[in-house]
């Protein structure tokens, strides 16, 4: 077991000590071998740990289908062994179901709702875990087109925030700031979200940027919706600087930038960003982002002046 944990640490440094995806892609076959060996040895603790690395890597290199299967493995094992402390580490990844599961047409809506209820039962009633769960459930409703359910949940979250404000977690500070930003933005508390964002600006976030990235994307989108240009100008340079850290950005990370450039009237730059982003459309299976990207492409096409043909 000890040697396995040592190996796990070496995996971690080998895989993530790099600013490209190449180490990660290279690691996948090795990770699969170790996963199979751990499973065959019935070493549940190591099986979970290896999967934590796998989930991170697969998410980065767009191996979403395989990531979902491994997530389901974790969830299934959690259901069987809830008292096993080894499994708790992987649980934070299980909430990714909410974001991606609605993209699988072969998974029925009933099963998605049933799964959400099962995970609700696991997530407990502690302040942070409940908020984290609600936040992801809200995203799931939104992605499934269940806008009424999403709005109702948001109301409940707002009311709860007044009587029992969100507590800060004690995990990775950068990731926690990301979650707080996202949570406040969802609730429309943009000033609170900006306070969190400002904390981020003064921190070194190199290896961790994928943590707060989602929070920043959400906040930037909300600031764009409300045309809060000063705050946008404050955040955008930081965002651009860290966008490609530690790996290439997913398509949805490019969308606020394109919107910002269109809003600034910088159409050539917006077009350049669209060209760059077009390469990303097929990479991640993020249908929502792809739809929004196409809408922006169209908006840009319409706003670009057409030069009359010389007579």
């Amino acid at each position: 077991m000890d040697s396995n944990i040592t190996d796990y640490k070496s995996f971690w440094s080998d895989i993530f000590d790099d600013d490209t995806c190449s180490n990660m892609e290279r690691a996948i076959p090795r990770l699969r071998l170790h996963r199979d060996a751990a499973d065959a040895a019935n070493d549940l603790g190591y099986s979970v740990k290896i999967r934590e690395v796998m989930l991170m890597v697969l998410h980065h290199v767009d191996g979403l289908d395989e990531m979902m299967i491994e997530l389901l493995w974790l969830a299934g094992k959690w259901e069987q062994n809830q008292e096993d402390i080894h499994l708790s580490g992987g649980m934070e990844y299980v909430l990714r179901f909410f974001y991606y599961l609605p993209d699988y047409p072969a998974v029925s809506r009933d099963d998605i709702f049933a799964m959400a209820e099962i995970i609700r039962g696991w997530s407990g009633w502690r302040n942070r875990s409940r908020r984290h769960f609600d936040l992801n459930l809200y995203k799931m409703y939104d992605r499934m087109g269940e806008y009424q359910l999403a709005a109702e949940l948001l109301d409940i979250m707002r009311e709860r925030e007044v009587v029992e404000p969100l507590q800060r977690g004690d995990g990775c500070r950068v990731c926690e700031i990301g979650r707080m930003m996202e949570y406040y933005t969802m609730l429309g508390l943009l000033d609170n979200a900006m306070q969190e964002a400002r904390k981020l600006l003064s921190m070194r976030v190199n290896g961790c940027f994928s943590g707060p990235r989602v929070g920043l994307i959400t906040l930037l989108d909300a600031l764009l919706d409300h045309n809060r240009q000063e705050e946008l100008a404050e955040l955008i340079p930081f965002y651009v600087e860290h966008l490609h850290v530690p790996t290439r950005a997913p398509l949805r990370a490019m969308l606020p930038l394109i919107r910002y450039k269109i809003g600034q009237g910088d159409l050539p730059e917006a077009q350049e960003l669209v060209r760059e982003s077009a390469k990303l459309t097929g990479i991640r299976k993020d249908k929502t982002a792809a739809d929004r990207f196409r809408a922006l492409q169209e908006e840009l096409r319409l706003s670009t002046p057409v030069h009359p043909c010389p007579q």
Partner: protein
Amino acid sequence: MKTHNFQVNLEGVISLLSGHLYSSPNVFVRELVQNAVDAITARQKKEPGFKGVIRVQAMNADVPTLVFEDNGIGLTLDEVHEFLSSIGASSKRENGRGTDDFIGQFGIGLLSAFMVTDEIVMITRSAKGGPAVEWRGSSDGTYSIRLPEADYEPGTKVFIRAKSGSEELCLPLNVLKLLKHYCDLLPQPVLFSEDSGTESVVNRMDAPFLDKASFTPENQEEIAGYGREIVNGEVMASIPLSTRNGKTTGVAYVLGSSVSLARQTEHRVYMKRMLLSDENREILPQWAFFVKAVINTSELRPTASRETLYQDNELPRVRKQLGMCIRDYLVELNQTDPDLLEKIIRTHRVSVKKLALHDSEFFRIVIRYLRFPSTVGEVTIPQYREYSQEIRHIFDEEMFNKVKNIAQSHGIPVIHSRYDDDRELLNKLGEIYEGIAVTEVNPGDIMQHLEELSPEEYARIEPLLQLAAEEMEAFRTRPAVRKFQPSEIPALHYPDEAMVLERRTEHLKSQFSPFWNRLMKGVSGNRGQAVLYLNYDNALVRQMMETGDRELLRHFIRLVYIQALLIGNYQLGSRELTLLTEGLSDLLSSGLGQSQTNKPADGQ
């Protein structure tokens, strides 16, 4: 408002120097020799052509005593008051800044002697004239001055008696070792004597590797010999280094064996030929970890401890220019000694690959020498292109292993690009050279390159293929036929990624409840496809083509499919296990039935 002067606590300052600024009290030797060198430099400015000499005498008395002597510029009585009475004052600064001519400039060098002594005695006489002056400084912060009656030549003598606890530091052997360490490249002779014994020169003085013009064939062995001493092993080449202004020069020794990427090579850096550090990691770019450099600089600034370089804008400039020297040397080697270049690249390929990725011109030079593991052995790109103009590579080790034997048997070149930066290098190859097609392939692509059948051959096997298509439809597997070696293998199975995932889901099925299985099935879907390549060269396949027994053919196809899965190390699903069991039973039954039929009746 009345102003007051700060009071400086000398004991506190000494504690600061010994405990925090310097990494070791041994540096007092360097600091005192450095003062001597600067004094000689000052005298040479006044008297061009003057020959300076430094003497260090170590006396083994009850208390070890050292004398550092130089015939440099010396100090006048006024200068002694001005420079030796205040900490931080230095005769080597002009307008508050250090000059390029002197090593020291901080005004704290002499104080370092207090790390090993309680009293410094200095007798100095200026070459500018005036009487000799004796300065006696104590570690309690007091000093006295007198004018000795004896006659002294211009220059300076510093006397040190080891204080309690510092005796070992002042022993002759230690001092000699330190002199060799710090002063080896000083241009002035440094003479050492023990008690009243014979003086010997401790430093090499001549350092041809610090002058680019001295890299001549005659000096080659001397330069390489010094390199072997420095690296404590073989060196493959000695690369002259120089910044454009010539203020930083030296040599980079290419190490004779490969070094770990994790290890950072430490370089030896001299400041005006006095050793600054032999553990410097900043003066060369990180990618140059395959060389160990000896460098002398007069343009970079040391920190006050004189053990590291100051991190200003000059350091990156110097680093870049020195890095370019290494790069240019390797580029030039391509013309002058390609064999040596190939040897260096082979030995230090990790470093070379990293540099090539970031420098297109360097890439063009070295790419032809880089070797890649492939199905036709370890090959360079030109060697590979003797087999095929299209460069095919596979990144995934599992996939490469699946196709390796087949590709090897048929001489199909495929590079395994999993090592180091191979994948990026190969892709860059396609970007840099027009007309070179570089493709990342999968095993199915490789099967496409195997020999196809003639129309007649195809016509003969078509009925078998049609039947196989019917049988395999349920498994979303399409049959195809090729000729491949080894001919003992009747078929190979190549699933796409989605099919691999489906197989995994199937494998996990027994572990979970129907709910989770349904979710997994929903995620993995039913979209995977596979190809079953029948081998036309396999004897059994050929035999089966000729049989008209459709039932037997069906059994054959099912079992060949299962065998192909097993060859590919795929775990069998429940349907496939059933297929295997049924297929074997049916075959056995039909075999038994046949043997029953063939069995002669009793009594016949």
